[in-house]
């Protein structure tokens, strides 16, 4: 699993810890990570990706909060036993359908691709505190 983590992009506008969360979720979805499997430790992962260890810690805490992983004291981080890849895939599929419908309707109103993209980004970014939990 260690080698398949991608280096996050610090300048992308998406906080690094969110990028990590996405990567873990995606790995679970595609089956690269299975229920009960161990994730890399916070320090080794931080060193491997050359990012701040607090960022990794934050991503792991958030994933634990969402029930995606379990942090076992002294043992490490493990993918939750009750996470079923198919359930995540179903969510993503449902999401795809919603987005497809929204884009069709926006196109019908004459909006171009770039404008649609900006609308989505603005909506996501315009909610300060989205995805944050107090540390």
């Amino acid at each position, binding site marked *: 699993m260690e080698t398949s983590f991608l280096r996050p992009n610090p300048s992308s506008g998406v906080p*690094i810890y969110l990028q990590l969360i996405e990567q873990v979720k995606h790995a679970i979805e595609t089956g690269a990570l299975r229920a009960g499997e161990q994730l890399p430790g916070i320090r080794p992962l*931080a060193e491997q990706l*050359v990012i701040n260890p607090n960022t990794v810690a934050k991503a792991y805490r958030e994933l634990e909060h969402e029930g995606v992983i379990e942090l076992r004291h002294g043992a490490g981080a493990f993918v939750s036993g009750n996470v079923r890849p198919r359930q995540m895939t179903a969510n993503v599929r449902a999401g795809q359908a919603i987005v497809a419908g929204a884009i069709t309707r926006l196109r019908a109103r004459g909006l171009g691709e770039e404008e649609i993209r*900006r609308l989505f980004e603005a909506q996501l*970014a315009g909610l300060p505190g989205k995805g*944050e939990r107090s540390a």
Partner: protein
Amino acid sequence: MPEAIIEATNLRKTFGHVEALRGLSLEVHAGSLCGFLGRNGAGKTTTLKILLGMMRPTSGEARVFGRRVSDSVASVEIRRDAAFVGEDKPLFDYMTVQDVIRFTAAFYPRWRHDLEQHYLATFGLSPAMKVKTFSRGMRTGLALLLALCRNARLLILDEPTSGLDPAMSEQVLQALVRHVASEETTVFFSSHQIAEVEQVADRVVIIDRGRTMITAALDDLRAQYRRIHFVFDEEAPAPVFRAKGVERMYRDGRVLTVLASAGAERIVEEGRTLRPVSVDVVPVSLKEIFLESSGMEG
């Protein structure tokens, strides 16, 4: 809040007629990987040198590990637990790698010989090499090795990756991350490479013209700073916002742009009362925040 490893209060430093530091205050906490940003001439190197006792402030006080930097005896103690890598990677040019290592190790009884071997290999150095023949990358490698092997609690680096190729830069950053994570070191480094600071730092101190402009956790900056565009039917108004956090406002025809350092939601609410045609909220990159605090037009 973990203990403050570095605390500077109202530092002033004058060189002849030039005021390099004009009341600069900052704090760096234990275990932090803190970036120190500022334009050339803002006072970064001066600040770092004062912290290590190479320069004395004209007024104001600074403490490292709780010890006063202006006290010569305390300053020696500070350097027992701290490491400095200057911008030009100062070394003894007339020595060999082995000599420089032995010289440094003589001052640090907790010298890490295991790390020494590791970094010699990582940076491609061998004991017999002469320092005066070194390229920039090799100097940086050796300077870093000397800093990291002494088991210091604090690393102070002045532009550690300047002039380095991307691979070497990454190795430097990786070494810093490793030491913060596993050796419980605090790192305070100045840099012009904003992307690198965004990558590894958890906190950032931005200074301009001898004063601290911003001191914050990077995550907070990312969460709080927003650029808000209001587009109007006609000429954009110039409102005075009651909501706090407006750093800057500019009008360009029918567009009013607000740069907010906090409270974007309230500003958007207030702005909506002016009946704009559209409202756009976008995140602000660290580079923009930096340029903004250095007085450059966004």
